[in-house]
Each structure stands twice: as C-alpha cells, then as structure tokens.
C-alpha cells in the first residue's frame, strides 16, 4: 500500500461512512471495508481504475470533480471525506476543501509537498521546474496545476478557519522520523492532514 494510505487507514474509525475523492484502484476503500467495516464510495475518472474497483467490489462512481464538483451529495452525508494526492490536480482546491467539509465533519487530505528540500534544490540549481519520482511530469503536461507546500496549506486552513486534528509528513522512504516532523516543510515529501471545522 502507498505510504500515505497506510498511515491514513489508521485515522479512519471502524464502521464509519467514507467518501474517497480520486479513489484510484480502490486499494484504501477495499482495505477499510474488509478490515474496518467501513461503508464507502470512491469517485474516480480513470476507466482502468473504475474497472479495477468494480473487480474488487469497491463502490465507485464516475464523477469529475472539476466539472461536477460535489453538489450532488447532501450536507453531512458521510463521516469522513478522504482525498489522497488529488488536491494539487483540481481546478479549485480551496472551494473543494469547503465542499469536503460540507459533506463530512472530518477530512483527510494528502498532497506532495512542494517545499521539500530536493525540489527546492532542483529549482535553485537547474532553474527548471522540478521533476522527481513523486512528481514525474514536465511542466506542460502535468495534471498537478495547484502544487503547494506544507506551509501554504496550513495558511489556507488558517484563513478558512479549518482546524487541524493531525498532521504528518513522510520522506523519500515513506517513513516518518523526528527530523521531518521537526522541519516538515523542508524534509517532508508527502503531507498528510486530518482536518475538521
């Protein structure tokens, strides 16, 4: 399981109802429904991923967050809304964040931290947009149109009065250690947030 998924699976309470935005091949929901009696739906747009979810028996709904948003879901329909590695790829991340917190009291969000030292170093040394294992795209064909740093996200939460319940970062090796917890904006590769309002 991807590093961020294996951390957030422990943040989801058993027996809850979860909406997973950009659920991929359904790995997280599959784990949660098998091991934690979680009931949920995933939203996805990739045909391959949708077929894989169907094979796994994960509820998947074909829905494009950019064109349809989340207005088809009623207030407080879920206990938790999860969005892993998709915040940076949506057209209006700030509005989506509000929408997520309309659907559920708690949300989990993960995204690549653009403040990570290797990315800063890449840009500083080469003077070009960083390309890495987590961010493998060139600037002109990247789906990541709203990259941000750990600090940027915290500031958005502060402006929007969003309360942070947990936060962590993982490094290259997908580990957490005292160093990257001390300087998350510099040493964290993937940021993981658990927020509420």
């Amino acid at each position: 399981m991807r590093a961020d998924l294996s951390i957030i699976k422990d943040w989801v309470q058993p027996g809850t109802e979860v909406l997973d935005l950009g659920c991929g091949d359904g790995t997280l929901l599959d784990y949660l429904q098998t091991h934690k009696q979680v009931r949920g739906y995933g939203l996805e747009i990739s045909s391959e991923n949708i077929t894989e979810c169907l094979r796994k028996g994960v509820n998947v709904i074909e829905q494009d967050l950019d064109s349809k948003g989340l207005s088809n879901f009623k207030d407080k329909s879920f206990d938790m809304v999860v969005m892993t590695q998709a915040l940076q790829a949506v057209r209006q991340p700030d509005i989506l964040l509000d929408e997520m917190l309309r659907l559920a009291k708690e949300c989990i969000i993960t995204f690549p931290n653009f403040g990570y030292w290797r990315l800063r170093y890449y840009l500083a040394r080469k003077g070009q947009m960083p390309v890495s294992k987590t961010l493998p795209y060139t600037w002109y064909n990247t789906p990541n149109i709203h990259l941000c740093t750990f600090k940027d996200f915290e500031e958005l939460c502060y402006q929007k009065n969003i309360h942070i319940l947990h936060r962590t970062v993982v490094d290259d090796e997908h580990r957490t250690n005292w160093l990257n917890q001390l300087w998350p904006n510099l040493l964290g590769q993937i940021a993981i947030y658990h927020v509420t309002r």
Partner: protein
Amino acid sequence: MPEVIPPDSVGIVTPQVAQFDIPLTLECGKQLNSFQLMYETYGELNADRSNAVLICHALSGHHHAAGYHSMEDSKPGWWDSCIGPGKPIDTNKFFVVSLNNLGGCAGSTGPASINPETGNAYGPDFPVVTVQDWVRSQAMLADRLNIPHWAAVIGGSLGGMQALQWSIEYPERVHNAAVIASTPRLSAQNIAFNEVARKAITSDPNFHEGRYGEHTTYPDKGLMLARMVGHITYLSNASMGEKFGRDLRAQTLKFGLLDVQFEVESYLHYQGERFSKNFDANTYLLMTRALDYFDPARAHEGDLSKALEPAKCKYLVVSFTTDWRFPPDRSEELVNAMVEAKKSVSYAEVDSPHGHDAFLIPTQRYMDVFHGFMGRVAKEIPHAR
C-alpha cells in the same frame, strides 16, 4: 446464418413455455386467470441454485437474448454480444433466464393471444400491464424454475427499470442489479415521443380501435411510423451522421417530394417496415404505456431514495454519453438517490457514439465495466458443496 456456431456463443437454443393457471392480479386491478410466459435459459443452474441471472428485455425485446434457434437464423439473439461463454454474462458461470414479458407478442400471453373466456384474441381488451406486474410474473417464473434468488437481475432501458423494480419489490431475492441506459422515470419529452408513436398507430385507418384482428386488417403503416420515430431516439446525431451523412440513394437530387432520396430515409423505412411485420400494434401501445407509468418514487411523494429503501442488492448503473433518450444525468439522478439511501452502487458513464442503442453494442469500455462487475458477482456466488 452462422456456418459454424462461434465458440463464444451459447449455441442452438430452444424456447420453452411456462403455463400458469394461478390468477395474477395486476396493478390496474384486473386479473389474468391464466397466462403463459415464453423463456429461454443458457448455462447450467448449480447445485445451490445460486448462480441464476435474469435478463429483462426492453421495449421491443423478447426471450431470445442469445444463441441461435437454428443454423438458418440470420442473426443471434438480441443481446448475444453480452451473453455467452467468456462474455460479461458468462454462461460458464451463470445460469441465465430470459423471458418474453407479459403483454408481449413473442409467445407470452399478450393482446394477440386468445382470451380463454371469449375464445377470441384479447386485442385492446388485454389489461394494461406495468413494470411491477412484469416483475411479479417474473417472480412466478423464478418459483417455477425453483430459483430462490438471483445472483443478478440485469436490464437495459425498459429492462433496467425491471431490474430496479426487482430490487425494491423482492430485496431478499436479488443480490445484484445492473441498470443500464435507463432512468427512474420518463421525462415529459420521453412521454411525448411515446405519444407520437401511439398516435401514429391509433390513427392508422386499419387500427379499428385495436380490433384489427377481427377486421382481418393490420395497422402496419402506423406501426411503421411509430418505429421510425422510436428509432430516431435510439440513435445519436453522431452515429446517424457517420452511418448515413447526407448520402443520396441516386447520384443527384430528384426535386421530388415523395421519393425516398437520402440514405437515412431509406434506412428508417426499412427498419419501420421490418418491424411492422413482426410486432403486434397493441403490444407496442402497451409497452410504451408501461414505460410512461414507471415511477417508483410516485408512492413516496417523489422521493426516489425513500422508494429505494427496501433494496439490499449491489447496483451497477451504466449510462452512455450520446444517449439522448435516457441521458447520463437520468442515471446520475438514480445514483444520487441510491447514495442518499446508503445503497451499494457503482456508476460508469461510458463514452460511446451509439446513442441509446449503445447498451446493445459491445464497445471496449462498456465490456470492461460489465466484465468487472459480473466477475465480482461470479466470485461471490456461494459454491456447491
């Protein structure tokens, strides 16, 4: 005609008849004291009787969904693309039941059948049947075949409505339901098109208030028109454009008002004519009414999610991008209600150029989705000990 039976075909099949002498009270209040249902089966029922799949047909469908009746058949059953060994509805894994609905004209009791009480054909006196009546009569067939529950009930268009109704009416007997290119209720525009079709039939001078049988005439011109209008709504602008464009039958314009000049005209004439020779006009009226009436939310002040409350199955909902008869937003309306009712549901909006007819055409993405869902259904079948 097939020279050899393809390896992924169910092969030569023989329709069967189930006779019911138990009265069936219909939604309209009338009763049918006896009736028969024509059906076919493909594949083998397992020892646990747990691998049965029901196929529900659409407006002009019938029991012959897959395989061939003889080597002389020009075409296989209407859903042969999806039913057979290795196909999404895999007959190596499932026991498939497909029937002609009550009120139909392919062997099940309908307006063209003899009314035992009068000795004449029912004609227009055949009671108006609804999706609910169909589902109830299908449950009687399931009882007869000793099928306690369906691994899946599957249907496209009007067939999808039956799958939906099954899940609400017999929640304990449906484990999965696939609702394809369908809608929870017709729109005003849908009803309007149906009304044009009905008017075409009833205004044919040969219609005789539906008693054309007694007059030994047939409203084939009306039925042809009805089918032509219907057919336009089954295709998309894109698929018609691709198939016919503005192609002419002759080289030049004839500057005549009456001749068939464009290829698309000729195609519609052909489709309409062929249909009018094989379909009963009263059945057509009946089927369009069943479509109009279907609205499970009606009994719940229009609240579809309330109507879905009893359901226990896992749903698959599929729509097609160019379907303008039952467009994707109608399927999404259904999916939203299912989510609100906290039901298990997956939804795919399949990109296809084929309009409403797309549910019959085995395009890659559609087959991937169907295979994915049915593969999981097969995996969850409790196996014979």
